């Protein structure tokens, strides 16, 4: 790691780019979601602030900033404070491993277009995403509120359960590629075929598990309004609530980015092999576009499906998704061995 | 025939030893209520085992009535330490093995009604016990012997502990601890001998009986080793001060357990003396003889006297076992061929007559659920057949001529009087005491007027019970009238063993342990010819 300053600069630039993309996910999605929800429910949605209500997120942000920050008297102060921060942390760390373009040569240096070109990329992702559960649990615990606690417990159970299926479906992707690096995965897909084709099963599992991992409908049991008010973040308000909000959407985006990278070729487009700056820009745009499509699906699903019951949720996770993912793993392994992939 | 399973399939000792185990396996799949099926199954298995025994005997019994030493193919077991799987039968073990096999079906018939619970497991325990006993009798490798010796313990422990009487746990634990205490010492002694053997044999280990027999140990070492072996066997016999487990075990054990215990298990102790303790440590046994003699004679008189004052039928018979086995020990210690022949025969005799007595007590117990003398009296009127068998078996046990007990006692005492003198004369008084306590038993159970109303309607022996007793009685009579048939197979063996023992006793003590040369060519030729 005898890195000189150019590398640091490059890294900082790359991080800035990705951060720029991901920080904006929440406000944009806020709007998208509300509008989409409205369309699905055949009503206008927020359309007063700005054209088409586009500035609504800004207004909301302002509202969050100026709202009173309430801390319940019986709460565990330290943990109560930590929870939102912990929520943001993994969300904003995950994307450092997502590649967003082909290698770029600047001044004789080859710069991989990924913030952290680590060997164990996928593992790191999994490791970090597994930490996400802490914020929920701590939030639920620290609030010292039975709804919060139940929400926290539900969240942790749900996360642990679905993480297995998620991990296993991701592992299947790694098999033919023979590498943990996401850029290798993208390269492989570019060279062969998008993983979604041979691993449609894995993708399905990944998709469902992603919904669960992000606590979104139909798996939003931890924050089911009708049962638990708002689950673990019942007590939170103002910027802390915003932090959870941000974390949720960032997580969504991160998962979407990962899913896209794993199953839909990431930044690449089939048949397109551009290099240099053009390639970088096209790659980034392609990635963002793909993420966008993915997010749209998230939204669509959210407003279309009813909520699961908790036991159904567990049953689905353990008795359907997990076996399916194992089956997928075996199939992929077999196909790999057979040389079909 | 090279593998264990190959042996198992042939007409071999392995089959004899392990057939009961194999037969026991299906019993684990019987439901515990399937008594009837289990009984019939076990009975058939035991009869097949008996058939195997007879077949084996038919294959190897010499034309002159002698029984040569026959080895199964020797298999390596724990090769690093020279432990071998080596079963062999000779004239010493043959009668005891056949006795064990012979008793098994009778035990099953005798337990038909007495055992009401977990019949399949009971049968399995009996069968496993047979394997242990036969294995211990036939093992020609001391390590193997020890393993079988311990294997015997567990099923017997279960027999007493599960199907026993009121104080069964106490009795079972007592039985187990007494026996275990001795056998551990024996293990140490065996290991020490094997270690010494390998030290003298250039690092090649062996536990084989013939090899360890080659050890020529100085007296001071022999004494310790002999003490370990003798204690083990003395407890099993049981000899006088180690006998207290026996009455408890017998009283609490179910009928079948008692019969097996008295019939064959105790013989392992005396067999151990004859096979191991005496030939392996001739000098030490010579030194210990006065002590052991004193114990044996004490045992004869003590057992008889205590038996006399018992109020429980089974306990009386149990104490009588102590006295009877005292005779056997006396004969063994006499180191006289007649006495040894008598001892060996007496082991069988005791198995038959005491076995029959235990069966009879059990039959009475099945009817009245008590064994106390107070509860009986005058049974001859309601149960004449029972009375006949009781008198018959008791008289055999008393040692009435023309029945088996006499032959054994007579030979033991004749032989031991020749070498020992007055201890044998004192021991002879035991025959008077035997009459006293056994006639007391007869008197209190079947003679006299009936004093208890419960006894007036007792059913006489059923066909099954008679079937269990008749073979025993036939054999008792046969041995009594023509004992030669039974003495002939073991005579040659005993004479050889005794000659060797005598010769070694006469050798001077050595300073250092040494190894005798392996069997010379002539002897090899002799044994080959014997085969």
């Amino acid at each position, binding site marked *: 790691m005898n890195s000189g300053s150019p590398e640091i600069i490059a890294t900082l630039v790359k991080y800035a780019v990705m951060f720029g993309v991901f920080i904006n996910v929440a406000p944009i999605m806020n709007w998208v979601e509300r509008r989409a929800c409205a369309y699905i429910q055949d009503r206008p949605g927020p359309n007063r602030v700005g054209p088409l209500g586009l500035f609504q997120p800004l207004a909301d942000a302002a509202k969050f900033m100026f709202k009173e920050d309430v801390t319940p008297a019986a709460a565990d102060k330290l943990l109560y404070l930590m929870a939102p921060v912990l929520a943001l942390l993994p969300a904003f760390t995950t994307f450092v491993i997502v590649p967003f373009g082909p290698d770029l040569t600047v001044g004789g240096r080859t710069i991989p277009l990924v913030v952290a070109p680590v060997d164990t990329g996928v593992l790191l992702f999994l490791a970090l995403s597994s930490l996400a559960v802490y914020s929920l649990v701590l939030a639920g615990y620290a609030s010292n509120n039975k709804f919060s606690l139940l929400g926290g417990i539900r969240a942790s159970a749900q996360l642990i359960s679905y993480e297995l299926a998620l991990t296993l479906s991701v592992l299947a992707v790694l098999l033919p590629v023979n590498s943990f690096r996401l850029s290798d995965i993208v390269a492989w897909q570019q060279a062969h075929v998008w993983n979604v084709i041979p691993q449609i099963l894995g993708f399905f599992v990944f998709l469902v598990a992603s919904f669960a991992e992000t606590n979104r409908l139909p798996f939003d049991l931890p924050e089911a309004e009708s049962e638990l008010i708002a689950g673990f973040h019942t007590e939170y308000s103002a910027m802390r609530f915003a932090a959870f909000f941000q974390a949720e959407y960032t997580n969504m985006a991160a998962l979407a980015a990962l899913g896209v990278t794993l199953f839909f070729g990431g930044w690449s487009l089939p048949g397109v092999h551009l290099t240099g700056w053009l390639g970088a820009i096209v790659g980034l745009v392609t990635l963002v576009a793909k993420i966008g499509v993915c997010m749209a699906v998230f939204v669509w699903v959210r407003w279309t499906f009813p909520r699961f019951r908790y036991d159904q949720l567990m049953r689905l996770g353990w008795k359907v998704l997990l076996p399916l993912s194992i089956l997928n793993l075996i199939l992929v392994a077999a196909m790999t061995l057979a040389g079909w992939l | 025939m090279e593998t264990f399973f190959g042996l198992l399939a042939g007409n071999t000792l392995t089959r004899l030893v392990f057939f009961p185990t194999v037969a026991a396996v299906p019993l684990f799949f019987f439901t515990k209520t399937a008594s009837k099926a289990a009984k019939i199954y076990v009975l058939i298995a035991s009869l097949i085992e008996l058939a195997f025994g007879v077949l084996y005997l038919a294959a190897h019994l010499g034309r002159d009535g002698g029984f040569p030493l026959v080895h199964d193919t020797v298999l390596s077991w724990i090769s690093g330490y020279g432990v071998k799987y080596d079963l062999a039968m000779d004239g010493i073990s043959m009668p005891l093995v056949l006795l064990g096999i012979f008793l098994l079906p009778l035990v099953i018939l005798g337990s038909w009604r007495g055992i009401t619970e977990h019949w399949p497991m009971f049968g399995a325990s009996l069968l496993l016990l047979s394997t242990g006993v036969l294995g211990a009798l036939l093992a020609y490798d001391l390590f193997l012997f020890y393993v079988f010796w311990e294997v015997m313990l567990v099923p017997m422990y279960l027999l007493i502990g599960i199907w026993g009487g009121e104080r069964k746990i106490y009795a079972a634990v007592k039985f187990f601890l*007494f026996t275990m205490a001795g056998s551990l010492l024996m293990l140490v002694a065996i290991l020490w001998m094997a270690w010494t053997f390998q030290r003298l044999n250039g690092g090649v280990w062996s536990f084989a009986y013939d090899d360890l027999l080659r050890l020529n140990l100085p007296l001071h070492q022999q004494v310790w080793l002999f003490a370990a072996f003798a204690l083990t066997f003395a407890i099993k016999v049981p000899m006088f*001060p*180690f*006998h*207290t487990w026996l*009455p408890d075990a017998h009283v609490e054990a179910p009928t079948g357990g008692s019969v097996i215990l008295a019939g064959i298990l105790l013989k392992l102790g005396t067999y151990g003396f004859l096979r191991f303790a005496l030939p392996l440590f001739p000098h030490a046994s010579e030194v210990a003889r006065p002590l052991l003699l004193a114990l044996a004679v004490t045992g004869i008189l*003590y057992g008889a*006297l*205590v038996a*006399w*004052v*018992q109020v429980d039928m089974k306990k009386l018979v149990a104490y009588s076992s102590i006295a009877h086995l005292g005779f056997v020990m006396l004969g063994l210690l006499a180191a006289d*061929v*007649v006495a040894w*022949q008598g001892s060996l025969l007496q082991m069988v005799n005791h198995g038959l007559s005491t076995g029959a007595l235990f069966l009879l007590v059990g039959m009475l117990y099945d009817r009245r659920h008590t064994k106390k003398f107070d509860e009986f009296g*005058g049974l*001859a*009127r309601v149960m004449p057949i029972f009375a006949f068998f009781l008198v018959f078996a008791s*008289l055999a046990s008393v040692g*009435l*001529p*023309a029945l088996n007990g*006499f*032959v054994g006692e*007579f*030979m033991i*005492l*004749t*032989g031991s*009087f*020749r070498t020992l*003198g*007055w201890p*044998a*004369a004192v021991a*002879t*008084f035991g*025959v*008077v005491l035997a*009459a*006293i306590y056994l*006639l*007391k038993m*007869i*008197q209190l159970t*079947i*003679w*006299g*007027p*009936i004093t208890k109303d419960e006894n007036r309607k007792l059913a006489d022996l059923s066909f099954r019970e008679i079937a269990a007793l008749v073979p025993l009685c036939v054999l008792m009579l046969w041995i009594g009238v*023509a*004992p*030669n048939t039974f*003495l*002939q197979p073991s*005579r040659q063996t005993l*004479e050889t063993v005794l000659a060797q023992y005598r010769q070694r006793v006469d050798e001077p003590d050595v300073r250092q342990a040494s190894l005798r040369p392996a069997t010379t060519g002539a002897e090899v030729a002799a044994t080959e010819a014997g085969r």
Partner: protein
Amino acid sequence: MLELLWLIPILPLAGAAVNGLLGRRLPKALVTAVGVGAPLLSLLVALGCLWEYAHGQFPNDAYDQVLYAWTTGDLSIPVAFLLDRLSAVMLFIVTFVGFWIHVYSAGYMAHEEGYSRYFAYLNLFMSAMLMLVLGNNYLVMFVGWEGVGLCSYLLIGFYYDQPFPPYAGKKAFIVNRVGDFAFLVGMFALFANFGTLNYHDLFTTIATQPGLVTDHYTMGLPLASFVALCFFVGAMGKSAQIPLYVWLPDAMAGPTPVSALIHAATMVTAGVYMVVRSNVIYQLAPGVSQFVAVIGAATAIFAATIAIAQTDIKKVLAYSTVSQLGYMFLAAGLGAYSAALFHVMTHAFFKALLFLGSGSVIHAMGGEQDMSKMGGLKKYLPSTFRTYVIGALAIAGIPPLAGFFSKDEILHAAAANGQWVLWAVGLITAGLTAFYMFRSVFLTFFGSFRGTHEQEHHLHESPPVMTIPLWILAAGAVVAGFVGVPKVLGGIDRFHEWLQPVLFHPGQPEMGAGTEVLLIAIAVIVAAAGIFLAWRAYGGEDGLANERAWAARFPTLHRVLANKYYVDEIYDALIVRPLAVLSRFFWKVVDTYVIDGTINAGAYLTELTGDVGRFSTTGNVRSYALYFFVGVLLLGCWIAFG
């Protein structure tokens, strides 16, 4: 015929087997046929054999028949029979008397329960007794010896559902067993020194090399004395000598024919037979022989005194038997073996006759045995009365009946040997015998009836099946003596001559003919005096009146005699009870406290250690972890600094 010798014991055995195993299902007639037929066949075969033996020449003057090897090898004993002059006599007695008692039994036991069982036992007894007599070695003799003991046990306890008979049987067996113990030891000693138990081999060796038995010591005694003593102790048991006679009176609990056969005629004389058989050894053990004579004489007079005071007719006969057996041993001890055996033979006839007669009386009295309830029976039981009196005269030694000759020979032997004390004792005993026998005759058959009316009503003579044997035996009691008429009385003493070859030291000191005749006369006078006194005392209408008067005058003496000198009670107090106490002590104290206590002490010690140690077991995981940690630390210290 001789080759059928083995059939003689086997036939009754077969009869016993048939009756014993199947008897309950066979018709009574068949049971009788088998039960009586077997001894009859046996008798016929025996007579045939005897005839052939008497007319043939045999090596060693004996016929040996080896059936099979019982054991071989170092201890090599065949099952073999021997017919020589000695066993021939016994064979005749046993088969002849035995058969007639069987016949008598068929009548006597006709209405008893267990008829077939009775005959099975009785046949078995015959078989065993014949084996005893015919065996050619001590082991076969011992087999028979024990066999008759067993039958005695079973027959005494024949009425098994009453309390006393089984007890008496047990007593008989055990007391006999004490004797057997000695017999066994004697055999061991013989075997240990000679390696054989065969009569011929043994006696030839001993006779040719007496030093072997007189100079070798076994357990402190010369071998001959040791063996002789052992055998005599064995004989004491079987033949009811002091101190082992106690079983015989009790043995009367059995059926009367049994008493006649076993406890009078045959089994009890086995001891005498054995001593006579072993005469070679006894001759070499003079001390023991003297002891035998003394014991015999003592028993004779001792039992006779008891017999005087008994009122049970069978008890009188029982003590009489003991007394007469003492007589026989007296003879044997004096070396007059032929006299002993002669008395065995005559005694077999007249004592069997007396017992059967008493059985007839008891039969008529409906089971009553007490003479004080009898009286005046001669008119009801004429045959019984006549034969009984013949028997009584014979036993009293009135010439020319059988008892006179045999008894005379014994007294003669004592006198000839100069054993005047023993002679005197024998003489007194003879007088006492005459007295108590005629006491029983007068009490039973003379005077007036003292029983109940009901009994009187039922009085009847026994059926012919019973009276015929009585007459046969009575005839025997009359004529049996003539085979041994002493030379001084003009006879040739065939009996003595017949036995000469089997006796090792046959010669008896001679004495003057005049002295001998004088002694005979004294004996006859004493016997007659006994009878006279008995008539004086008991001949009246109420025979018991005088006795009651005497009893009142000498109460202690009467009580002691009536209670048989309290011997049973003394044995009980001196032997049985202490032994029982000792046994209980062994059981309850030694076993429970000493042995188990020692072991339990070990167990308690272990438990105690555990009790102390368990306080470290707090049940607290952390404590255990701490112990563990400390241990690891110590180990670490050892590694790091050690």
